[in-house]
């Protein structure tokens, strides 16, 4: 089965990251992404660069910022081919264990 692993972060964790933990996290991701089971890795630019688009009555409305305005934000994602949910959870847990905050959401693809 294919799962999307959605990597969420918090502003607090992001802004208090030390170079050492950044390196450790990068290593964990590099290791996961090297696996042939992983595809479509996407790394999003800073959440501050987001623009949200709505259309109401034919008029395009823009908001500066992400759709969900909160201290948590989507930082990136990749697709994982795993036998079952437990397989996907174990990969997510391996990465999350090295991170300093946030969480990873595991969502099956349709």
């Amino acid at each position, binding site marked *: 089965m294919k799962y999307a692993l959605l990597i969420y972060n918090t502003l607090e964790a992001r802004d208090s990251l030390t170079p050492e933990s950044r390196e450790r996290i990068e290593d964990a991701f590099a290791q996961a992404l090297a696996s042939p089971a992983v595809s479509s890795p996407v790394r999003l630019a800073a959440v501050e660069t987001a623009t949200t688009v709505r259309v109401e009555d034919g008029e395009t409305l823009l908001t500066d910022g992400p759709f969900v305005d909160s201290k948590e934000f989507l930082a990136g994602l990749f697709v994982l081919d*795993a036998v*079952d949910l437990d397989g996907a959870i174990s990969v997510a847990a391996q990465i999350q264990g090295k991170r300093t905050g946030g969480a990873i959401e595991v969502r099956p693809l349709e």
Partner: protein
Amino acid sequence: MLENVFRNEWGRVLASLVGLLGDIELAEEAAQDAFAVAAERWPREGAPDNPVGWLIATARNRAIDRLRRERNLAEKTRQLQSALAYQLEETMEETTTFEDERLELIFTCCHPALALDARVALTLRTLGGLSTEEIARAFLVPFETMSKRLTRAKHKIRDAGIPFAVPGAHLLPERLGAVLAVVYLIFNEGWGADRAELSNEAIRLGRALVELMPDEPEGVALLALMLLNDSRRAARVRNGNLVLLDHQDRSLWNEAQIAEGRALLERALALQGRGAYVIQAAIADLHLDQPRDWREIAVLYGVLARLTGSPVVELNRAVAIAETEGPETALEILDGLPLDAYRYFHSTRADFLRRLGRNGEARIAYVRALELTQTEPERRLLEERLTDLWPQSPAQWEEFWTFTLNELKESIENESG
């Protein structure tokens, strides 16, 4: 006959079908079909020699028919397709012995990716064979709510790929813990609300687990714990009033269940079990002795508190300490606990205060416990205690008024301050 087979074998039949079809909803439909065919045929033609094998084979064939019919209407999931391909090649013998796959099913239903209330409901539905209606009634929620909860859980299992498997060694302790927690929660739900059917169901599930994993000390201990507690059921309520352990009519205790529980506890200990359920079963065992060994009980609650970090366990330790060292020491243990929303916290505190002669504070604590109580027998017990606390001598009346006036003064000061 059929009703018995249904009660006893629904879980096995269903588990085998889930294993084949990879979808609980479809498996349920097929199992129901098979039981319906049995209800029609068995009275007429007699029951088959191997009723479980017959039911599974019939259900499998029904499921295949159904899939054939629906194949053109809608393309089902990948698993179903492969199940069908596999099945079409194989001729089904009613005498085939099927592997017991209930363990796989219970690990699926108790997977921590499901919400706890969904795990509980699903386990009762799939392994216990309770109807949605029965589960809804047992948990006092509308039928629609329970039905949605079950459907949502079944769909998540299918769509998110929650495995139908016994977890590997590295995951097993954690996942087994989740399974045991669900079973114990079902038991306690039945115990607290005096709903015997739920407690009995939990004991049945516990028995199945011990049968399937005979060498897991925590599973064995959980069954021991449930049996030992449940043995006092008949003595626990008299004329709708809750009877505390020391006042219970011991001739109403179920001796056979106590013996079985104690033997299981021995077995769990022999299996080197030292986990939370083993300790709890040992405590339940000690509670049945007369007189009770409060010192040993306090020690075991201490071990359990370190193991679980649970403030409720600390509360129970305080109850034991009140017996060995007096209510004053026990009250000190209580005062640090974050249990303001827990009714037993307030009733226990009230009890200690009453024994210390601090009647005014005791009354307030009983009232707080009453506010949080949901069952009628408990309410009556607390009201009785509250009535007993009404002043009965001039000295007590004086204490009452002094306390009440002080409370009043304090609340006025708090409001104006």
